[in-house]
């Protein structure tokens, strides 16, 4: 299996060869053929960018990595996600990506938050002002926190002109500016949800520097002129798959963690869902998706989301707090599951994840170990 071979290379930090690149090109072309038009409307067509399927939504070009196509949102859900993406975007000309669970919105009944990633391609000097503008009140989007270099900034945003400005612009070499994260509360047809946008300023090499903070394979890109990054990079493919597997392993077999079982199980399953999709194991992926969508695990995800929303309330401007609080409170009212049921669901999720990981590890054994 080529994907596992590339993951193994990445894990052992070995450099891919030109032959690996050729093999990946062949693999991506084939996977593109198997996934083209697999969305309900059959709108996702092969693009000229290897590994990407292409469509357009709300007047923007959309590039979706092949393996996300069957689960990618469509219709009104996609339009809403794109609208929120546009609202959180700092600079209109920047490519902005729908990322993480949001790319599974068609199939996941509960998501913890809306994830976005913005690649900032213009000069970095405009970033502090652009962030400050996001702090201004909007009816359906409230900026809660800006995090840069471990420093957190909140309303009334006075530190954005001083500390943040210094931190974000004080860089050198291949990184034109420091990366940072913006947390919002978003109110849309998708509900009241936490929304996170990671802003990655890129230099001339779009795969270097801050680009390493995210994975192109997990991002559906909204842009003009094509996605800023390439899927045709054996190291990108291998790094992402290796990260998915190892992150799941950390959560499933933790050596030292304070993370609750209720968080570890569902998160590990989501990582393994993405891994199985990259590996082309669609039956296993469908199964795990059904598992994640079981009411007990949905309740676990919803509870995490509610906790995150509640933690955001104190940072909301007063008038928005008055309006959003009842909505958040309403959404956080009982979930219908007892504590022991949630614990049981989390335990089963861990067992499912452990079995999936054992299976993947079995594939990774050297050919001589065939049993």
């Amino acid at each position: 299996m080529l994907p596992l071979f590339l993951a193994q290379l990445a894990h052992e930090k070995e450099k891919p060869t030109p032959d690996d690149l050729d093999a990946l090109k062949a693999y991506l072309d084939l996977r593109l053929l198997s996934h083209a038009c697999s969305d309900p409307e059959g709108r996702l067509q092969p693009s000229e960018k290897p590994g990407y399927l292409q469509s357009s939504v709300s007047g923007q070009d959309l590039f979706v990595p092949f393996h996300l196509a069957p689960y990618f949102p469509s219709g009104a859900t996609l339009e809403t996600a794109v609208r929120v993406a546009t609202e959180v975007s700092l600079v209109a000309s920047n490519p902005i990506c729908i990322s993480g669970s949001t790319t599974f919105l068609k199939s996941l009944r509960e998501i913890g938050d809306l994830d976005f990633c913005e690649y900032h391609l213009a000069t970095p000097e405009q970033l502090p002002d652009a962030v400050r503008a996001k702090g201004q009140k909007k009816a359906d989007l409230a900026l809660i926190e800006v995090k840069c270099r471990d420093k957190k900034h909140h309303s009334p945003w006075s530190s954005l002109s001083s500390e943040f400005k210094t931190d974000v612009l004080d860089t050198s070499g291949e990184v034109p500016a420091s990366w940072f994260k913006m947390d919002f509360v978003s109110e849309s047809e998708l509900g009241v949800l936490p929304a996170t946008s990671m802003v990655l300023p890129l230099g001339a090499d779009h795969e270097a520097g801050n680009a390493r903070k995210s994975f192109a394979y997990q991002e559906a890109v909204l842009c003009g002129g094509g996605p800023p990054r390439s899927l045709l990079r054996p190291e990108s493919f291998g790094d992402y798959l290796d990260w998915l597997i190892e992150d799941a392993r950390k959560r499933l077999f933790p050596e030292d963690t304070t993370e609750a079982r209720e968080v570890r199980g569902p998160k590990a399953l989501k990582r393994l869902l993405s891994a199985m999709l990259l590996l082309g194991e669609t039956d296993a992926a469908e199964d795990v998706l059904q598992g994640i969508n079981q009411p007990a695990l949905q309740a676990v995800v919803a509870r995490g989301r509610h906790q995150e929303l509640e933690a955001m309330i104190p940072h909301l401007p007063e008038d928005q707090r008055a309006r959003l609080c009842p909505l958040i409170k309403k959404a956080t009212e009982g979930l219908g599951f007892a504590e022991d049921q949630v614990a049981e669901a989390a335990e089963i999720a861990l067992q499912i994840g452990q079995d999936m990981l054992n299976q993947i590890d079995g594939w990774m054994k050297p050919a001589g170990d065939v049993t």
Partner: protein
Amino acid sequence: MKAEKRKRTITDIVALAPGRLASNMQANLEKLSDEELEGAYHKSLKAKEYVVALGTIKARSDTTMITHLERRRELYARLAAIRPTAALTPASASSAKNQLPAASSIAPGQSSDAVPLVLQSTSDAAPVKALDLWTSRIESRTEQSVEQLRSAMRLWFMTEEHQALARQPGKSGLAELLDSPLRPEIDHFLTLSLDHIGHDLMRMLRNRLSHSLKSKDDIRAEALLQLLARDSTAIETAVSTSTGSKLPLVDAIVGLAKMRTFALNYQPDAIVSVQGRQGRAQRQLGSF
């Protein structure tokens, strides 16, 4: 390329495609020119043989794969059996009064008579007792039809404050419900209904209730709205004029419609205990 070779080439490539996407891939391959198809074939060989030739990764074993999938399906089934036990408001979540027996507590083939009722002697218990009584008279009851009813009843409890919403015309009410925390239970109910809802009933509902509705989903949505709006009369009328269908869902819907009346007229003293309820149930149900 001759048609037969083309077909064989497509079959060879599709054999390498990920399981459920094989037919999608076949459709896409059929659109390719001979030259493109040839190229795809060589790519398939390259991608397949590349790593095997390097000898670094074990080829996938289908037997192992199936064993893992089967093992996990048992776990998924256990996960699916965990159902909400409390209503959705904090007040009721903190009390057991609205708890219903979980689906997992009913063994296959076991009748609902063997399921202990959690609710006893509270006025809120009326619909649940009615449910229990009613399920005991379904001759063809199965684990699934019983769970279907229980799911419907959980919805009944949960939707008290959503009744007005569900009564809204059109789909806006449903859309709001589907976005609400009730969604897992609604999905569960619909999944159960989906498995049992027959084509005859679908056709009947389509004809009698929803001339303008087009898809199966629309019909299901309509039936759900009727259920949530507690206005089962239309469904009951439709069902009663049908040609003697014995489908569990027909029973379920008629039962719900009847339960509505039963619950409204419920007298706690009429049912003393869960034990020996069969005989009393028959008498009580005589008024349905």
